[in-house]
Structures are given as C-alpha cells and as structure tokens.
C-alpha cells in the first residue's frame, strides 16, 4: 500500500488564523487504499489539516499536492472537479437545513452531473439504504433527525458522488457508544464495498482500534519543544498504545496525569 505514490500530500505546510499559528511545517502523505487516522487533543489542528487536504482552505505557507499536482497551480474549475473526488463527512454533519434528506443527498449529483431525475433518485435511495436508514427519512428535514441519523445522512451525501477519498471529521463525537460503533462499522463497510482511501479525524480510541491502518498524532503548537515536529507520532494502533513518548501514551490511554503536571508547571 505504501509503495504507491501518495494520493494526497502536505509539504512543509503552515497555517495561521489571524495571529494564531495552528500548524507549522507539517509533512504528511496519504496513500491510496489506506485508512489514516489523525488523533490529537482538541484545538491541535486536526480539522484544519483535513480541510487543507481537501482544498477547502489554503495553506499560509507550503504546498498541498493531489496525486502529485500542486493544488495552488490548478484552475478554479479544475480544483472544483478534483475536489469532487473527495467526500467529506463534517463534524456537525453540516446538512443543509433548508433542504430535506433526499435533496441533501442528491445535492452533489444535481449540482455537478447531467443525470436524469430517475437516475439521481436511484442513487440517492441506494445511498440512504447503504448507511442503514429507512427510506421514509428521505422527506424529513435535518432538524427532525437524531445526531446519529444526521451523521449517517452526511455520510450518504458524501458517498453519493462515488468519491475516491473520504474524510471523516470526528465521526463519532456526540454520539452514544452504540451509535458510535454503528458509525465505525459503516466506515469499515464503505472500505470493504469500494476501493476508497479514508482519513479519519478522531479522539475516540475505539474508532482508532477498529478502523486505523496508520495513525498520526498532532500536538498543539504552543506546547511543542523548540524545533520539534508537530506530528509527534506516526505508526500503527498497537504501536500508539505501546508508545514511549508519555504524551502519546497518556493520550491514547486517556490518562490525564501528564497533562495535569504540565498545567501545574504552567
């Protein structure tokens, strides 16, 4: 898997919001067919990293490559077409409030293809079934759905365009343990059903154990040692759980003692 050319790359990427530096010198490769899990505490720049990979925001410095092509060099139209190869499940599901479930899932197809209404309907209903939702939700508005259902509609919408890469931004946050596992199983079933590359941002260790081929851990920039790389760990789930670095070890084991010491020292 890792012999192939990377499908997405970040090279020496910095990202700043106003005067706040969030990412500094990030180098990250995503290989076709793998499930890469990005972990790290809240505010360390995980979602920013995925938005950079998806081309939704531009880096303040450095380069983003999609299959070896520099994203900054692509024309707006080319960028829009390329971006459709990436499906994105947002943290809050980000369903369009004013549209019902059917219209939400059909949105990308209506916007970007010349498919007939019957063809669109076939795909939309299939995707709704794929994510384990009954077809009667199609007419409902997002506000009428539970958190888990909204996440699943978000996934159906991300899958509608048959993307090659799917980015899951905190897919299980805010869900009960059973629904979290339903989402984990969906991630695996999507992976089994089609040859996709998955990037999962999470701090749910159950998700990490279940879906990860490879893990990278980001650390908040203000707390790094001088000259240290912001990606403080890269390896498999087993390696993460046995890591020597106390910051990685305590994060994956949910142990606060290291952090409490840091807070006291500050």
């Amino acid at each position, binding site marked *: 898997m890792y012999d192939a050319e990377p499908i997405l790359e970040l090279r020496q990427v910095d990202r700043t919001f106003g*005067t706040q530096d969030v990412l500094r010198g990030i180098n990250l490769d995503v290989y076709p067919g793998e499930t890469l899990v990005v972990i790290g505490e809240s505010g360390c720049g995980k979602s920013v990293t995925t938005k950079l990979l998806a081309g939704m925001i531009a880096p303040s410095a450095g380069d983003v490559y999609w299959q070896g092509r520099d994203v900054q060099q692509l024309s707006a139209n080319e960028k829009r077409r390329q971006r459709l190869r990436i499906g994105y499940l*947002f943290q809050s599901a980000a369903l369009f*409030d*004013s549209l019902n479930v059917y219209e939400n899932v059909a949105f*990308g197809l209506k916007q970007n293809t010349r498919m007939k209404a019957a063809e669109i309907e076939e795909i939309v209903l299939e995707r709704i079934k794929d994510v384990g939702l009954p077809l009667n939700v199609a007419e409902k508005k997002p506000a009428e759905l539970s958190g888990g259902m909204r996440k699943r509609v978000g996934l159906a919408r991300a899958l509608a365009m048959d993307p090659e890469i799917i980015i899951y931004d905190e897919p299980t946050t805010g869900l009960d343990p059973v629904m979290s596992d339903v989402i984990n199983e969906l991630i695996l079933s999507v992976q089994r059903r089609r040859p996709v590359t998955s990037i999962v941002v999470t701090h749910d260790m159950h998700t990490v154990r279940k879906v990860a081929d490879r893990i990278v851990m980001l650390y908040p920039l*203000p707390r*790094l040692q001088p000259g240290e790389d912001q990606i403080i760990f890269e390896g498999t789930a087993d390696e993460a759980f046995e890591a020597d670095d106390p910051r990685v070890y305590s994060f994956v084991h949910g142990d606060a003692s290291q952090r409490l010491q840091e807070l006291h020292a500050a």
Partner: protein
Amino acid sequence: MSTAYEHRWNPFEWLGEKIVAPIAVIGDFTLFSLMAIRWTLFGIPRGSVLWPNLYQIGVLSLPVVLVTGGFIGMVLAVQSFDQLRVMHLESRLGSVVNMTLVKELGPVLAATMLAGRVGSAIAAELGTMRVTEQIDALEALGADPIQYLVVPRFLGCVLLIPLLTILADTTGMLCGWIFSVTVLDINSYYYWFHTFEYVTLLDLYSGIVKSLGFGAAIALVACHRGFHARAGAEGVGNAATQTFVFSFVLILFLDFLAGVILSQVYLWMDPV
C-alpha cells in the same frame, strides 16, 4: 516551560494589527463584492434557488415597508403643517410632503427598515451556515458558495428594494394626503396642484436609483458579515448587529454621495 512559539505582547505589533485589520476587512469586502457582481453577471442561479429568496426579501417585507411608508407620510404632514401655517402656506403642504418622501425619506427609511429585517436575517442565516460548516459543505459538493448563496440574495435586494421603495413612497403619499385632507383640512385640489408643480419625475427617479445602491449595500454587507461570522451564538448575533450598523452607515454615506451628485445634475439642468 518556555517553547519556541510563546507569544509576547509587543506594542508595535498591536498597533500594526489595529491598523491593518480594518484595511484587510475593506479589501476583503471589495473582493467579495466584485466576485458577487461577477457571478451575478455570468452565473444566474436556478429558479428553485432564486424564488425562495425573492419571496423572503420581497413579499415578506411588504407589511413593514407599507407601515413605515404610511407613517412617514403622516408624520411629514403633521410636522410640516405647523411650520407652513405660520407662513400661511398650508396649501403647499403636498409639495413638501411628497418631495421629501420621494427624494429622501421614502428610499432611506425603507432601506433602513430592510437593513433591519432583511439584512440581519441574511447575516444570521449565512452566519449559522458558516459556523455549522454548511458553507464548507457547499464547496465540498462542488457548488460555489458565492453563486449559490450570495447571488440570489444580492439579486433579490437589488431588484426588489426599488420596488419596495416605490410602494413605501406610494403608501406615504396616500396616507399623507388622506391625513392632510381629512384631519388638517387642506384642500385636495391645491395639495396635488402644488405637488405636481414642484415634484418632478427626476426627483422620483433619483430616489429609486438611490434605492438600487442601498439594496446592493444591504445585500453585500449582510452576506459578507454572514460569511465571516465567528463560531457560537455570540458570533452569529454580532454578524447580524454589525450588518445593521454597517449597512445603515453605508446607506447614509451613499445617500450623501447621491445628494452631492444630484445637486450638480440639477444645477446642470437648470443653471439659475
């Protein structure tokens, strides 16, 4: 523990930021407006996207605009009547009421009401879409957020605010006339005779042309603030408040600018 990225307060940096930030916002607003105008010219959205916005901006604003127009007409009649009576010029009340209405107060107050009703609603809606990542989702699904969200609202405001202004003017003229004739006992014939003597079509058109600018200002400010809303209920609330304040200031500035230009036009047409 000292780290490589610790930030120390620096007065020069602070001052620079205070100067650069507003300039950056103005530059960003200008680019945003140019992109909105470009998409309006080259990528008119589908009817299914446009109609709900026209309904929201136009039809749902009718009551507030009609009520505003009506009261402005009557207030102008009451206020002007006392002053004209001192000079025994009550019969000229129609010209004062209608001139003020079509040139100034009709367009400005209708636009102010719409900045409050339409502008704040647009900013709150788009701000909520921003903080719930719906605008990012649009982009991820291959839609341009400016074409999909801004253009319909911009078109709605630019096309419908002049129509709403005409309705506010008309209601104001009718209410002012009814109040003057029935309560203030002004002769209806002289009321309209003096109106047509002084109020020209150019006055009416100048008010309508101004309202086109007001409509564009409200839509662009509201969409820009909504797109840049910060997270949380406070961020969305601020976007709505800023929209009203900024668009009101912009309306007054545009009104002043139009006043200066129109005075030159009048002078050129009638150089006495």
